[in-house]
């Protein structure tokens, strides 16, 4: 495998974890978060600091997961206080706050970021394998949660919070759970990203990136794990394959997002389901 292939596959793995985890918050539980990049970043910075302090990979992973979910649970508490349309705005704010805060912190490298992060010792191919294993585990967890009673309750909370509470489902607890799980996985992705690049700047975790993750979720089909995985892989490869897409990334993804919402709100998953139904009926 060429170094280029290894790096692309690694990024695909990381994006799959990010998109699938965002889908748990926004797709399963209906809590629109446009700040997923902040939790990703919190995990990356925490893992970087942990690598400098201990050079211990499992410890750095744990640090990333904890940092992501800690920030996530704080935002989750905010989600209990605000209506869901305000939540989108709140999470955008969190993302800008995160980037603005990190930029001014010399202990986090400020504008320059953190470079020379100690390697994992697994090599680029070893890192890639670790990332792919974690991505598979994330997909498996997502599929499991979706089938469990938790996924069932998430759907209820996402569709009608008040109706859910009248069936004994504590909407607040479930929203916190969704944020806790989703952002812990974003923190995990952050740690893996740190291992992968050994050099992080805060620009990698900005609002634009969060919007791209949301585009993956929406284009894949809100709530569908496999749809979102497909979109994450496709949308990561597209800019690599087509120069134009890379140059006009925001325009292309923004345009696709709008088109999907207008024409096929079920995303790729919805389109496949329709096709399937039509074939079966024919």
């Amino acid at each position: 495998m060429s170094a280029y292939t290894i790096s692309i596959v690694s990024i695909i793995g990381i994006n799959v974890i990010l998109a699938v985890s965002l889908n748990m918050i926004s797709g399963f539980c209906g809590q629109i978060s446009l700040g997923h990049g902040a939790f990703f970043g919190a995990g990356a910075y925490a893992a970087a600091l942990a690598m400098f302090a201990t050079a211990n990979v499992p410890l750095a992973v744990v640090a990333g997961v904890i940092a992501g979910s800690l920030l996530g649970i704080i935002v989750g508490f905010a989600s209990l206080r605000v209506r869901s349309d305000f939540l989108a705005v709140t999470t955008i704010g969190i993302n800008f706050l995160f980037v603005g805060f990190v930029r001014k912190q010399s202990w986090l490298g400020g504008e320059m970021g953190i470079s020379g992060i100690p390697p994992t010792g697994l090599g680029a191919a070893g890192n890639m394998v670790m990332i792919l294993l974690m991505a598979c585990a994330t997909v498996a967890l997502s599929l499991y949660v979706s089938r469990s009673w938790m996924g069932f309750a998430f759907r209820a909370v996402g569709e009608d919070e008040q109706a859910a509470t009248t069936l004994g489902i504590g909407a607040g607890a479930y929203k916190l759970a969704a944020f806790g799980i989703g952002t812990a996985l974003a923190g995990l992705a952050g740690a893996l990203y740190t291992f992968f690049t050994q050099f992080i700047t805060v620009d990698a975790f900005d609002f634009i990136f969060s919007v791209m993750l949301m585009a993956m979720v929406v284009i894949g089909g809100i709530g569908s794990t496999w749809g979102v995985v497909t979109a994450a892989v496709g949308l990561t490869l597209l800019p690599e394959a087509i120069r134009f897409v890379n140059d006009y990334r925001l325009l292309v993804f923004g345009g696709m997002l709008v088109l999907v919402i207008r024409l096929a709100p079920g995303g790729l998953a919805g389109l496949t389901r329709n096709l399937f139904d039509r074939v079966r009926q024919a």
Partner: protein
Amino acid sequence: MSAVLQLDDVAIRFGGVQAVGGVSCAVEAGDFVGLIGPNGAGKTTLIRIIAGLLRPDRGKVILGGIDVTGDPTSARVRCGLALTHQIVRPFREMTVLDNVVLAAGIGYTSEPLRALLHVSRRRESERAAAILASVGLAGTERKLAGALPLGQLKRLELARALAVSPKVVLLDEPLAGLNHTEASKQVETISEVHQRGITVVLVEHNLEEVMRICRRLIVLNNGIVIGDGEPREVMADPVVHDAYVGGGMVTHAEA
């Protein structure tokens, strides 16, 4: 004390409207109470306060001897309360069966961690199907709830309320929008529920049905209790009678 539900000077105000103006009453276990009154009397508001969907400005809500005034709705439901919404609120994107299965799974969903650790829905599905059959919705299981007509959605509301295994059910106009046959079937179901020992509080406009099945009547007008007792005696009270004639009780539109 055998009161399963007790209200102590409950009041709430919306802007200039005193929707509920200090209601006190106690409902005994196993009773069948009709809550009636003209449109805008505050019946739905009172039900929503009991369920915890609205927080009263003052007063207490006591369920099974425990003060739940500060508790969220989900906690009250876990204590044995269930309600049907006057304006139906099914999960439209779920199947009819799933709507009821979800309610029947209250033992799992009451705690996120327990919900995460359980997958099988077999027992709940069987129970849900039986409950759907008991309210006359057999055959609709696989339809999306959003595709049902209002008459069936009203029955789905009742099915979901029963699936949480309540001790007390608050039914907010469960007959409104049903045709005559559907309504008598629904009344029959509600009577059966009561015979199983579940306490029923029924908000209903159809006086004939109310007089026939309720053992006690509470009459609300302008957010205040103006009559409470044995149905025939209450209806004979001139104060109640005046509220009726003056209050547009005769006509009634959904919502």
